[in-house]
């Protein structure tokens, strides 16, 4: 049983590595397909034939693409991410700080939104079709329907321009204390939470409602078991698989899809770095960011599958 999970893990990780390789190849080709290269992008309107040629020679861009890719992957396998073509900084350094910021923001948003979504989903399932359920559904759906930047601007207008409770931008000094990080993260975390809560909440509600109608729950009710025990002991474990999958999807989104929120709140995360690097055709940085994003998806999806299997006795103890 534990063995089967381990086997699955190994399989998944091997597949994951394969997809990461595929991603790196695709990204490399895709950036190559974009018009222009880093020399032209960096020099912009100031590019002349001479300076562009000198730029390419210095960065080794005059070599054939296959050679460059092999070189890059060779270094990558030795743990060397290389330097940014645009400003010669170590990519590990460039990405490291930003990744930390992105993960901090994602973790805070997850800590707020996941428990809240599950709780609200359970309450909505319990009191389904009541005014409470309807109000909750309507507001969650509205929140998710507005574009992120709109939600962000509304929050800024109310809480920083009018009330002055929180700063309107979330730029973090390198030596910021935890209290400051927290204060500056409140509005972005609120924005992200409003965006991701709806899906998780509605999945929880749907999965639970389905189960609450089944005969064994009715039996439990008839035995006089308390509501809380019915939900937590009998219903929730069986509803876990779909919920975990949706949660994983939303967590991945919190890591990779927040560039709009980063821009509005001036939060120095990975998304902005990726956008800037694509615009400048800075392939090594694009590769590093893309691999991090791809790895996030691989890890979270594997985790979701493992949890789904672990929560399902039929999959945990397959017959023969």
């Amino acid at each position, binding site marked *: 049983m534990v063995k089967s999970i381990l086997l699955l893990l190994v399989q998944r990780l091997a597949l994951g590595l394969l997809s990461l390789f595929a991603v790196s190849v695709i990204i490399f080709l895709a950036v190559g397909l*974009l*018009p*222009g290269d880093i*020399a*032209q*992008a*960096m*020099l*912009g*309107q*100031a*590019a*002349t*034939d*001479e*300076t562009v040629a*000198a*730029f390419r020679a*210095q960065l080794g861009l005059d070599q054939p693409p296959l050679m460059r890719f092999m070189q890059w992957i060779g270094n990558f396998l030795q743990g060397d991410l290389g330097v*940014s073509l*645009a*400003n*010669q*900084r170590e990519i590990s350094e*460039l990405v490291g*700080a930003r990744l930390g910021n992105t993960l901090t923001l994602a973790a805070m948003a997850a800590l707020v939104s996941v428990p809240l979504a599950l709780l609200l989903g359970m309450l909505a399932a319990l009191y389904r079709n009541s005014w409470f359920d309807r109000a909750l559904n309507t507001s969650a759906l509205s929140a998710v329907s507005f574009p992120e930047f709109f939600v962000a*601007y509304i929050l*800024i207008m109310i809480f*920083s*321009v009018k009330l*002055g409770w929180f*700063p*309107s*931008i979330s*730029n973090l*000094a*390198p030596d910021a204390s935890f209290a400051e990080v927290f204060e500056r993260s409140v509005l972005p975390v609120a924005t992200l939470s409003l965006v991701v809560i709806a899906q998780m909440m509605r999945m929880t509600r749907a999965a639970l409602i389905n189960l609450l109608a089944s005969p064994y729950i009715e039996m439990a009710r008839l035995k006089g078991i308390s509501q809380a025990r019915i939900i937590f002991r009998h219903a929730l474990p069986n509803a876990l698989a779909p919920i975990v999958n949706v949660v994983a999807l939303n967590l991945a989104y919190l890591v990779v899809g927040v560039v709009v929120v980063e*821009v*509005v*709140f*001036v939060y*120095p995360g990975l998304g*902005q*770095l990726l956008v*800037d*690097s694509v*615009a*400048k055709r*800075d392939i090594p940085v694009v590769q590093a960011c893309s691999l991090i994003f791809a790895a996030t998806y691989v890890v979270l999806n594997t985790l979701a599958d493992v949890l789904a299997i672990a929560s399902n006795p039929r999959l945990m103890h397959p017959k023969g």
Partner: protein
Amino acid sequence: MNNKKNNLTQAITDGHLPRRDFLKLAGMVGVAGAALSFGFPLNAWAQEGTPKSGGVLRLGLAGGSTSDSLDPGSWSDTFTFVGFSAVYNSLVEIGVDGTATPELAESWEASPDARIWTFKLRQGVQFHNGKTLAAEDVVASIEHHLGEQSTSAAKTVLGDVLAVKAQGEDSVVFELRSGNADFPYVMADYHLVIMPSKDGLADWRAGSGTGGYRIKSFEPGVRMALERNPGYWKPGRAHFDSAELIGISDGAARINALITGEVDVINKVDLKTINLLKLNPNMVIEETKGAQHYTFPMLCDSKEFGDNNIRMAMKHAIDREAMLGSVLRGYGSVGNDHPLQPGHRFLNTTLEQRTYDPDKARFYLRKAGMESLNVRLQASDAAYSGAVDASVLFKEQARAAGINIDVAREPADGFFSNVWNKQPFTTSFWYSSLTADRMFSIGYAKGASWNETHWEHERFNELLNSARGELNEPLRREMYNEMQQLCRDEGGALIPLFANSVAARSKRIAHGPETAPYGELDGLRLIERWWQA
């Protein structure tokens, strides 16, 4: 010396000053300028109260990117321009009056043909890393942008420089291919900062300059923290204890940051919401009259625009005033199809302002043997925010003249590598033109790599070459006047607008009665020029 300067001015205006005398005096003006620039701040600031020392200046700036670097050859937008202007000095500074003022050079002198320029360096100036400024540093810093290996954006600016050599410890000699009377202005270019040399090369990685502020930390595209250099050599400058630049690319986020007091000054104020910002009693709008201009370049070697009559038809089919109102909300001025801005010292004031005249446009079309014209305009906001809107407006205006413009929106990404300067009709912009010579040389001269109209006009190019080395100002003015007319009546650039740079500051921050006319934010130098109110 002031007297001499006045004599010189008088002699130049009268137009009969022998060349040799001019140069002798011109060399002295450099020295006089030095004295003046030190005398100036005290006099001028006396009117507004003395600047206060101390405090922090926080800037929220558009134009930062994660790919920004310490290498001055790569600086390409406001964030690096403004930040590094506080860290470094150049040989020459553009004063608040718009003229070349000595900075690290104490004075300069030209040979009679304006081909050899000698800059005498200020003594006893120290870099942040403790090294004392010497001629070798200047040579290395300039050579950083030259040579085959150079990837510098300033390489074209220095296209005329044959050699730069140290002469003793305290002088640097530039040898140019041909005479250039504006060479001191070239040395004020924001890329040409002086860095300490190491083994004969400019050590740009050290991030060490001679400026009023030291780099405390620099995270490209995110922030730059600066602290005052206590040993700064320039008196009456660098009042803040520290400065912080924050990269804010989103226009609404910049305004929010200013209103909520997160920053004290922002640049590139969103013109759509500027009226709301004006209502706030604690904010001041800072407008810099623009050298920045927007163009619709027409390729003169294309089959569409080969005939000047067609180009003239296009130039009469655009309603500049309407465009000024809607694209710039009035924050700018109308262009006259040549690149010198209103107030430029060589502006041809006798040229009549071109207006919207569909009948005249039709007249030129008929002269070209056409009743109507169909052209495709490849537009992108990469040129300036609002370029696509301006193109659509143009399309509507040109219809009255029988010109059908098909506006094709191009992606901003890669616009300048793939569309601009390749397709017959596009949108473009110029950031600044410090001198008439530079503007004409890089944008309109035959064979110049940024000649975005592929215009080749024999008379124009002749005039350009003779004006460059001409030290007799009235003669030079005559030549520039004719060149502006040629651009306007025969060139390929349709120049509808000059845009002002619009910034905003909180009243917590103050500055002198005048700010520099070139470049936004007091000639990019607000960090060392402004102070806490």
